[in-house]
């Protein structure tokens, strides 16, 4: 990504200058700290001493799950009004009439949205460092979890940018983006559950193909990808591609989604004169 992209520079100036960036980051880290603090107190008062030595085993997944949930809610808002807000504040004409190429607009806007994402992920690092110090967690797994969260954030930002080019009103673009993310996160496990429920009615038990389909759906879910990294959760026997970790397939699926969203956004921006 070109860091001299004028749109990226302008977005960074406007996004980071106001109170918003400060409030987003402070709110994010405060929320995570409160949740982790609360769970730690409950855990300390109730868990046996043997478990306390590996408190990180419980606290780290909780922290990561909460963080992933927040990314699902926040990432779409980072870029869902990127184009629609330009149209609403009547600056889009000036942008299009300039020499800015569609790719400059795309990478400038999405890049600025990602800067927020990176900021929030970095903001949580001290908390993860704390839970890591409580033991029971592998550093490599933490790195993988952060990769899953980053790629998920990138995908949601790209998808939201696409909505922003499709919908004129910023609020509607935000809503559409949020629903798209909820669909991606919830629909696949819901379908998996549905198929599992169907399978339980089979007299001879579900076929292996059926089980594979359910597992394949779970491979697209970032929460499932994070769960697969929790020590002690085994991969079911007989599934397709047993050597490909769930997190890796999920990251790959999301990268494909990202590429598709960016490509469609670019095409939409290239044809801007037809829809303006």
């Amino acid at each position: 990504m070109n860091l001299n992209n004028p749109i990226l520079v302008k977005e960074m100036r406007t996004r980071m200058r106001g109170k918003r960036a400060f409030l987003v980051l402070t709110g994010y880290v405060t929320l995570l700290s409160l949740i982790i603090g609360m769970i730690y107190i409950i855990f300390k008062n109730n868990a046996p001493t043997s478990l306390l030595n590996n408190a990180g085993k419980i606290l780290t997944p909780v922290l990561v799950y909460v963080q992933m949930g927040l990314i699902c809610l926040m990432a779409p808002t980072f870029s869902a009004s990127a184009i629609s807000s330009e149209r609403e504040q009547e600056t889009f004409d000036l942008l299009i009439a300039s020499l800015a190429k569609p790719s400059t607009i795309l990478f400038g806007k999405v890049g600025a949205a990602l800067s927020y994402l990176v900021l929030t992920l970095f903001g949580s690092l001290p908390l993860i460092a704390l839970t890591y110090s409580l033991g029971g967690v592998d550093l490599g797994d933490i790195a993988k979890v952060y990769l899953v969260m980053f790629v998920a954030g990138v995908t949601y930002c790209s998808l939201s940018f696409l909505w922003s080019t499709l919908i004129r009103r910023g609020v509607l673009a935000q809503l559409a983006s949020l629903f798209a993310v909820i669909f991606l996160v919830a629909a696949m496990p819901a379908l998996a559950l549905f198929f599992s429920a169907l399978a339980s009615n089979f007299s001879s038990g579900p076929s292996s193909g059926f089980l594979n389909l359910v597992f394949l759906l779970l491979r697209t879910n970032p929460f499932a990808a994070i769960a697969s990294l929790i020590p002690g959760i085994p991969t079911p026997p007989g599934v397709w591609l047993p050597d490909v970790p769930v997190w890796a397939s999920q990251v790959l699926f999301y990268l494909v989604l990202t590429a598709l969203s960016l490509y469609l956004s670019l095409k939409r921006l290239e044809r801007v004169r037809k829809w303006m």
Partner: protein
Amino acid sequence: MSNNDQTTSMIKLENVTKYYKNFPAVNDVSLEINRGEVFGFIGPNGAGKTTTIKMLATLMLPSEGKLSIGGYDIEREPYEVRRLIGYMPDSFGVYEDLLVWEYLDYFAALYKLGPAQRKRAISDVLELTDLSIKRDSQVMSLSRGMKQRLCLAKTLLHDPEVLLLDEPASGLDPHARIEIRELIRELCRMGKTVLVSSHILTELADFCTSIGIIEAGRLLAAGRIDDITANLAGHVVLEITVKGDPALALESLAERPEISRTTCDGRIIRAEYTGGSEDVDELLEYLIRRGVRLLGFTRTEADLEDIFLKITRGAVA
């Protein structure tokens, strides 16, 4: 491909039509504007001025016809056209969170100016638009007139050959309006080709070398102001100043077949006279006979407003 240096025609529209759904906002418009000309695009609101300018600014494609600037086709060579033009829309927003210099720096970078060039260009346009003192102010702190000047400054950053100014003084107070007018005059002196639209004719009368009159999407007349005036030969306007209520004078004028139209502003009546120039005295005698108390009775040349009224009469239902 263009032959930018040889052509004298800078802006060219050939049978351009633009439909919004089934409604023709611009209808079969053909027009040529030469290099260095200051072209006033005149018409009431909704006449098709903004749509035409947006097409020239490469923001919209025509439904039919062809537009080119500097020989470059707006449909096939939009980037070459954008390099040549500076576009100021009628209604525009600014990035309120930026400082004035940052706003200009952003657009200068979008126009591919290098860091050193940007610095120089920003300083030049700020000076030209008399905003140097506001260089480090926040855009949101500027008045409406200053924002308008800032947008004009942005339009000039890459030193475009052609300026497309859509209602540049709309919504401004008289003082800011005069400032913008002075700025456009300065740009005319710099030899830019300017297409400036307005529905306020007095705004354009002072500095336009040629005009185009558009109404209901149709270009009713276009050319040099002198030529259009010459085409309206025999078109005489009488300025009649009355004492007291002008109703009697208006009523009397309405009875005369050689008076085609009257407008009244207080005690001053402007009457379009189509009779023989030697017979004006007969009209004067008639008014006195009818008991109209006259303070003044002058024969004037047609101005832009008269031309507009004459040309557009009956064009819109």
